[in-house]
């Protein structure tokens, strides 16, 4: 009869942590930060279709690093949970904290119960009425949750990137400044001998949760709009991504009833209309 070697629970957890940490550190990084107009997600991603950043709900976005199949599974789960809660209660009752807690439970259970932990680190971001009301939650492979005020970096050499981001980031910065700060942070590592390098615009996945909108606030920034932001030409604002028509506008009264507005309305340039909070 084969004898099973004894491994202490401590050792097992350490091994699992190490596996997950290594897996996450091998990948490319992502940063999430608040700026004056919303929350910005920037991820280094060679694919334009396999997203690391996506929409979960009206004011909630998701960013992840690590293994695609694992975080994609978590993303779908998050969309399902948010849509179920939004339908059962009201669209306003879906919040980022509940989602971060659910992710923490799921990841924690996988970490302790399954032989291989998920090699992922995720960020659940919820945009508020002002930069100080934004909430960013970091959920790691073992199910721990951290509230990260203002900014966070994950994956790859996350600590070095965080350091640069901390110096560059101010909550009142414009979108263009925020994109350039994120770009500077992401490209500060990974060059020859640990030096800075350049990242092409088409290797970045950029999206925002726009706090001025009502309804669905998530939008991707791609193509010419992204290049303009990186060059600092489109100061302050971002044009809608090409290929998608301008967001439909709706009367505010209708837009303030989240249950009946499936589309999102843009209140820019509509001074008397304040977005719902």
């Amino acid at each position, binding site marked *: 009869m084969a004898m099973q070697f004894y491994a202490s629970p401590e050792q097992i957890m350490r091994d699992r942590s190490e596996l997950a940490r290594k897996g996450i550190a091998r990948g490319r990084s992502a940063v999430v930060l608040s700026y004056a107009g919303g929350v910005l997600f920037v991820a280094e991603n060679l694919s334009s279709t396999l997203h690391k950043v996506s929409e979960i709900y009206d004011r909630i976005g998701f960013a992840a690093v690590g293994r695609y199949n694992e975080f994609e599974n978590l993303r779908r789960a*998050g*969309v399902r949970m948010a849509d179920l809660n939004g*339908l059962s209660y009201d669209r306003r009752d879906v919040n980022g904290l509940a989602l971060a807690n*659910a992710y923490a439970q799921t990841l924690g259970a996988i970490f302790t119960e399954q032989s291989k932990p998920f090699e992922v680190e995720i960020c659940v971001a919820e945009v508020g009425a002002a930069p100080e009301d934004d909430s960013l939650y970091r959920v790691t492979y073992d199910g721990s949750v951290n509230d990260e005020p203002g900014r966070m970096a994950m994956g790859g050499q996350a600590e070095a990137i965080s350091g640069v981001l901390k110096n560059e980031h101010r909550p009142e910065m414009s979108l263009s400044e925020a994109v350039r700060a994120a770009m500077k942070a992401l490209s500060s590592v990974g060059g020859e001998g640990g030096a800075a390098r350049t990242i092409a615009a088409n290797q970045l996945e950029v999206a925002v949760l726009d706090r001025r909108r009502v309804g*669905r606030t998530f939008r991707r920034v791609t193509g010419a709009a992204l290049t303009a932001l990186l060059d600092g030409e489109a100061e302050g604002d971002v044009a809608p991504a090409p290929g998608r028509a301008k967001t*439909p506008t709706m009367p505010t009264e209708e837009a303030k009833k989240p249950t009946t507005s499936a*589309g999102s309305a843009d209140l820019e340039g509509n001074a008397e209309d304040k977005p719902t909070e």
Partner: protein
Amino acid sequence: MFTNAGTSSFTAFLSKVAPEMLPGRRPLPPGMAADMAPHATTIVAISAAGGVVMAGDRRATMGNLIAQRDIEKVHPADAYSLVGIAGTAGIGIELMRLFQVELEHYEKIEGAMLSLDGKANRLASMIRGNLGAAMQGLAVIPLFAGFDLAASDPARAGRIFSFDVTGGPYEETGYDAIGSGSLFAKSALKKRFRAGLSVGDATRLAVEALYDAADDDTATGGPDLTRRIYPVVMTATAEGTHRLTDAETAAIAESVVSGRMENPGG
């Protein structure tokens, strides 16, 4: 339950984890239940050059009573399509909300919008799911219209789909109406509709048709000038869905009413 690879459809997900939230899955006691809940009435849709217009009156009835004067029966289904409901109001509103979530859910999960035909088929299967309740008098019939982003000719991109209690969808050419006043609204549209109408003309025509429906059907409400309750008019064009403001619908409704002061038949 949330993390199964599963489906991109929200209703399919609900049928596994919370079947009681699907209108068709609830057991009903035997017997007719037709007169126990408010009924929503007339909706019209007209395809125009470069889009589609949908309008609904504001009345809900319960037997011979007016249950609600300002119910809203026309809603955006997503950024490019509209849905109007007639029949049992409670189930209709629930179905409409579920349909909105269904479309948004697919878009978020898959990262792409469903085709207009895909949306219509989805709605058809949701209506079919309510067949049991429909046979006991709690029928809901939607009208679905939208701007087809895949259409080769933008002038023909506004498309209308109708349904029956067993599902559908049936694509309609030009215009369609549902609900108790639909007979009169369709008769009015038959005489007035011309292919290639502008979206602006089509909104006016929709309000006229609703006026004709209200003229002959007690369950359809006309423009209520004293309470300032006017039809809900929405458009779906390449720019997305848009709901006409109260001021805009008021202007159209008042001009229709003043036209009828001179010629009651329109």
